[in-house]
């Protein structure tokens, strides 16, 4: 049994310790946020926050997440009470199919939590490992900048 702390809840999972965290989150725990895109840490769609850092859950063993705080896109907010960053994506209609959003939103959140005022280069560097095959790039960057501006003005 491996004890996991996911989205503020404690779970005991019966899994091979080497199982990728993604498969436990999406499979055993049936969470809808992290998604299997490539299984090789190349696309970002499986991204979760582990102790505040954006991590590719397809490339992390479940045992390495034990004892840490795991946050998924679902843990950030709900349709009724979205996180302000999620709200920014809603306001900008920054989505097409939506499969990539765990990678986009959580990667941006991890960055902006560290540095609410990144340069364009820093932002692009952080997002350079994230793919959106619908290419809603412009809207997504607008949503991220909108939230960053909110963060800065609330400081």
């Amino acid at each position, binding site marked *: 049994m491996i004890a996991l702390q996911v989205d503020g809840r404690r779970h005991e999972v019966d899994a091979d310790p080497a199982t990728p965290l993604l498969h436990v989150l999406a499979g055993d725990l049936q969470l809808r946020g992290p998604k299997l895109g490539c*299984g090789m840490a190349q696309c970002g769609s499986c991204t979760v926050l582990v102790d505040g850092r954006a991590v590719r859950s397809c490339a992390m063993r479940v045992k390495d997440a034990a004892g840490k705080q795991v946050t998924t896109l679902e843990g950030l907010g709900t349709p009724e009470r979205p996180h302000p960053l999620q709200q920014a994506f809603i306001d900008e209609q920054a989505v097409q199919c939506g499969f990539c*959003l765990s990678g986009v939103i959580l990667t941006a959140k991890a960055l902006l939590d560290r540095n609410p005022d990144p340069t364009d280069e820093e932002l692009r560097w952080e997002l350079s490992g994230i793919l959106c*095959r619908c290419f809603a790039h412009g809207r997504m960057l607008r949503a991220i900048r909108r939230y960053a501006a909110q963060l800065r003005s609330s400081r």
Partner: protein
Amino acid sequence: MKLSPDAVPSRRRFLAGSGALLVGFGAGSSRTALGWQGLGPDGGAPPRGDPDRLDSWLAVTTGGEVEAFTGKCELGQGILTAQVQLVAEELGVAAGRVRLLQCDTDRTPDQGTTSGSNSHPANFDGEGLARAAATAREALLARASERLGLPVDGLGVRDGVVFDAVDPSRRVGFAELVAGGSFDVPLSPTARRRAPERWTVLGTSFPRLDVPALATGSFEFVHNVRVPGMLHGAVVRPPGPGARLEGVDEGSVRDRPGLAGIVVRGDFVGVVADQPWRAFEAARQLRVSWTPGPPLPPREDLYQQLRTRKPSRDTLVVDSGDTPARLTAAAFVVEATYLHPYQMHGSLGTSCAVADVREDAATVWSPTQAVYPLRSALAMLLVLPERSIRVIYRRGSGCYGLNGADTVSYDAALLSQAIGAPVRVQLGRRDEMAWENFGNAQVVDQRVGVGEGGAIVAWDCESWSPRLGSRPGSDRPGNVVTGSLVGFPPEEHRARSPAPVPSGSFRNGSNAAPSYVTGCVAGRCGGTGTVTSERVLTHSVESVFFTGPLRAPGRLQNTFAHECLMDEVAARVGADPVGYRLRHLSDPRLAECVRRAAQAAGWEARPSPRPGRPGSGIASGRGIACVLYKGDNGYAAMVAEVDVNQDSGEVLARRLVVAHDCGPVSNPDGVKNQIEGGALQGLSRALGEEVTWGERGVTSVDWRSYRSLSLGAEVPEIECVLIDRRDQPALGAGETSITVVAAAVGNAVFDATGARLREVPFTPARVKAALAARGEG
């Protein structure tokens, strides 16, 4: 391709294991009762039936909510919200009280495939859902008129209530007017649509209904569908095209935990386990031996092979008969060959489906664009009656055409049938990318004759493209890999050479003919241009890889060739590319798009290339391209501004300006989202995407070997000019902008540098080669 002698396997033989090898064993999983009820959104009785009856399209619940049933499904393109807007607008009910059920063979009308930018033409143009909604409004008004004893023109409709326009306290709700929830009337071809000038919901940037769930990660994709007793499958694909199964070593996975079975049918191999990861691991560990197929033809020879491959299916799209003479008599001829590689859909999420196949019935949750055709194909695959199969659409990762959605639905169904339990399959990245139906490669040769006055006098165009399989439709499961592995043949390549003389009417569904010809067939002209001497000949040859529609199939490849050659001609004549296009366009809407894009971009009228351009370092330029998509389904013109790093060969798009005309705009922000996404996807395809292979198989099998512009890439904002024509039929908007990107960018590179790019993608190496070839010809 391999053709198994028992192409249509019998279920009995399959289950008995003779004629098709089955080394599976029962899962022994507990089966919970999961019948037909309770699976739909509300578990109600299926209203589907005659598409000419209103009840097949619309229902009013006892609570006064409107339920609408559509065969055009949400793929991420926004059509769900637009259809809700349509129903809300026509019926006079708040959008929040409209529920749209999409693409379920037990519940929604058969509208074929959600593809080809046809959802707007099908459902917003006076037929389909639009006609149903207009019929419903008419029926509700007629019934209210009777109930209230008032003439119809004295009634108003708002928020699901019909009222006396003079005394609004006299009123009756929709639910009361549709007793028992059934209209029981036929669709009325004369029912009047709401006048567009009175639209309050349609025509507005109504926010997409699915975005809050998507942004918060709670949206149910097909990947999240869970069924009681469900197991997880994984497939083992052959190493390359033409490989045949030799044997499967069951012992190699005997110790795998949670393994429920190994399934072999023909050359199809899969495993089933209790957890997805265990299924992947078992599939990886399973020792399977294959007889390799013949070596694949070398990639560097691809385009030469396409020209010479036999047999060929030849089509003359148009032929005025006088092009050889006109070209000979021309002042000069501009001649060039344009090349486009195989590209892939490359969905971000690998394809996934869930199937529950039983002795006498099956339910499949699929991200297919085609629930009804899939049902028919599954009936062949599973040897079950069509009516016993239910296909329910659940959204997958964006598909952009025929990705792995259908093939993975077959995978799940085959494994479920063999193992006797519901099975979910999500493909691995390599299997998705190596075996999808690629967008076709293409070679286009063109010769354009120019007269003394500088006008084009003849346009001759000949192209070659490979094809294998495609959409399976209702009876060709072998058109995608799984069906083929099981033994169904792909659609036969019907050779035809020489091409018959064009007859009937001019059709430009693949944009094989450039925008600048008159398109005259049998005395009637359907083209958008002025050039009367015209010949367009296409050759379809067999492909070694599966091919299928990838966003703007063929149309992008053709438009790249035509619009770049048009630019070459304008440059030879010393004419401004915009003015020269306008000189040869007869279609006022296409010409308007060209003018509006140029205007919005601040286009400076002058010939290309730019005078005074630097010979090294960064050079900047602009280019334009336009298209009437499919010859009749949406207009677009794009101006691209680029920087070319002449030292590194890198191309950076600085600005993309699109003028767009799809008739009446249902949702301006939704159309913009499509234009923007199409433009950047087109940019990614133009700059970096190319399927690669070696002797034994495809080698572009992940995101290192198949390059997609990442979210961190420096990409331009897309500026959209929407030309809203509410007096015109509704046209498509999903594939217009992508069609013109490669051409607009290639033309901008020429303007910046004087180097002409004639092969996609515009990799730094190709750009540098083109730069080095400047002045050589």
